[in-house]
């Protein structure tokens, strides 16, 4: 995918996808003139197969599928360094958010779904309990991701230090939270929100 010949035409450039990214992120990809500053400062650049500037470049060419097929967006740490330093105020962190959301929605195959999984669990936690309970989060993540022994030694230590709680309770106002989730879903269904 990465090195495949790129045919450019009105048909092959997925402008709709790019417009969606722009709407979600509130940031224009056309503003980017490829100075490379985002990639220069990105702590995660070395982990990505498309460094941040190339993500924007691919979007400029309407190549959403090339972006989503890669792992770059899942390696973004949301540190906002790129956004902070961009000379054209391209909010790359927000574009990354938007790309992750679109990938999330499409739920398409992603080699990098660990992060996706962690995020999913995190949000489920909120919906169920109102607050995060890290032990549960970690345990379920490890279970679901099949990494049963990951950080095995950390758990008891943290427990002993009182950093993880064995027991937890739901928020009293958990109904309000559910309402928020429901109404967002409702808006999306109606097409009132992206």
């Amino acid at each position, binding site marked *: 995918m*990465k*090195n*495949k*010949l*790129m*045919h*450019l*035409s*009105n048909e092959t*450039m997925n402008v709709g996808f790019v417009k969606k990214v722009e709407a979600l992120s509130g940031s*224009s990809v*056309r*503003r980017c*003139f*490829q100075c490379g500053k985002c990639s220069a400062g990105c702590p995660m650049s070395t982990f990505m197969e498309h460094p941040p*500037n*190339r993500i924007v*470049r*691919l979007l*400029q*060419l309407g*190549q959403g599928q090339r972006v989503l097929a890669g792992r770059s967006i899942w390696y973004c740490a949301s540190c906002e360094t790129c956004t902070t330093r961009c000379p054209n105020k391209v909010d790359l962190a927000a574009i990354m958010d938007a790309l992750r959301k679109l990938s999330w929605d499409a739920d398409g195959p992603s080699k990098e779904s660990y992060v996706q999984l962690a995020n999913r669990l995190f949000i489920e936690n909120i919906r169920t309990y109102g607050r995060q309970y890290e032990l549960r989060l970690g345990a379920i993540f490890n279970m679901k991701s099949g990494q049963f022994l990951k950080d095995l030694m950390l758990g008891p230590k943290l427990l002993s230090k009182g950093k993880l709680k064995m027991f937890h309770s739901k928020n009293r106002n958990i109904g309000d939270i559910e309402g928020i989730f429901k109404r967002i879903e409702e808006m999306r269904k109606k097409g009132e929100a992206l």
Partner: protein
Amino acid sequence: MSRIGVFVCHCGENISRTVDVEQVAKAAGEIPGVAYSCDYKYMCSDPGQTLLKKAVAEHKLDGVLVAACSPRMHEKTFRKAAESAGLNPYLCEMANIREHCSWVHEDREMATEKATGIVKLMVERVRKGKSLAPITVPVTKRALVIGGGIAGIQAALDIADAGHRVVLVERDPSIGGHMAQLSETFPTLDCSQCIMTPKMVDVANHPNITLYTYAEIEKVDGYIGNFQVTVKHKARSVDESKCTGCGVCMTKCPKKKIPNEFDQGHGMRPAIYVPFPQAVPNTPVIDRENCTMFQSGKCGVCAKVCGPGAVDYEQTDSFTVEDVGAIVVATGFKLYTIDRKPEDSPIQGYGEFGYGTIPDVIDGMTFERLASASGPTGGKILRPSDGKEPKQVVFIQCVGSRAREKGISYCSKVCCMYTAKHTMLYHHKVHDGQAYVFFMDARTPGKGYDEFWRRAVEEEEAVYIRGMVSRMYQKGDKIVVMGSDIQVGVQVEIEADLVVLATAVQAQDGADLLAQKLGISYDKYNFYSEAHAKLKPVECATAGIYLAGACQGPKDIPDTVSQASAAAAKVMTLFAKDQLERDPVVAKVNEKYCVGCFACKKVCAYGAIEEKEIRDRQGNLVKKVAYVNPGVCGGCGTCQATCPSKSIELDGYTDEQIMAMIEAL
């Protein structure tokens, strides 16, 4: 000369790093006749110059030698300083111990020895120097402007507005040049003709401007302030004094299908024609090569329909001699074509682009004509092959330019901006079309320029692809363009309907020949050379000739107009005085010993030497001797080297000075 001052400059550390300047100053002090010597950190600085002036006064110096940088750098500075100290400026010389010594040698001892040697030589030069007074020559306050594009028009109008008479000579039947061909101009998208044609009319109506179109420079004689220029008026076959510009001849001409040069060959014109409707003057010319009357002797329709009887098949080339004091050269540029390499071109051509055989691969100027409301398509973007509206247009920059080994090494400067403009015009006219631009760098220095380019990208949705096109070929009615996006690192292929090439800006055809007539120098690309890249950007090395516009190098309209006005200002500066002062480095004849062999006259490239009769009181001819017209003399000294008895001598480079220097080796 017996009281010479020697000032040795450290030039910060530039000289003192390798040359022991104290030692040099000391050695200089021991040369007989040197009354004062010293070294100083920066002689060219204000305190340095003050030091010099003070020393001249205190030590009653009658000659000054500054051992510092190249005289090409600071000779004027120090001569001025010497002058303000009451010394004749020509008694101040420079010894070049920086460029010719400290910068090129590392061994301190040897460099110091060399610097001392240079100083010794130059002290002799100062010792044998003579006071010289500037030479004055009269100035004819009438200017010649060559080229009627925007540069020539601007320069002519400026000079004319200042109250001086101007002769404007244009090679084509109308003034206007390339700017008249453009559709809209960056970065404001003004309609080019809308801003151009009023200026053209101003030229035609200006009482101080004499306009010669369809005319060329035949010969240039004379010198600054006093040029005699022979202008060749090509036979127009239409009497300008009779023609009313009604245009009937053009409508009646039976031969109408001649590709119009003005439309880059994409529109048609008759054999008797004006290049475009707003032409100035609106007098047609007959294209004799395409006229049936001239080719077969049968037709004569235009003469028959011409009411005032202006058509004149018998007209021949005529010549006038114009006396002018200054010349502005504004001959503009031509665009490179990707065709197979012509015999004498430095550019190899572009086989990978089909050597220009693909009909829908056009150059930028053709696109201008397609986009122009007055162009062959009435402003619609229609491709040449089938007249269809192209939906995918690929623009390619740097075609010919910046290709050191295959084309020319320089950047054509205007293409980045006009291509951005083209994508905008295209987007405005074809809403559902997509423009792609292959580029290496977007070079947009200029007020509002980068913003303009960004607008093309961000708002007009041109897809800019950093990377070059390797090849293109016809596939059905499409042109397959194979390029790369080096930012993504992939090959890119686009099936385009139209390809527009930003081809290189080159010097006009015949620019070298004109330069030879004018006696001005030009670079290897035939662009005219300015006297100094930074400080004399509009002057030529040949005094009295100035440059405006793209004949000196690729330039956009604002830069061209600026340079034209600058050239005009230079002309006005020249015309501000009745007499012109010039460097007195000219030859003089010793009439007592001149025997009138006139070898000097034979070798003088300037024609500065005349024969002068010496008569006694009774009016009897005693002898004929040479006489140098100081206004004409260029100061090369070839005459002196040729004169067997050395009865002619170049001030500033006398045999006495040179021999003394050789003596001091």
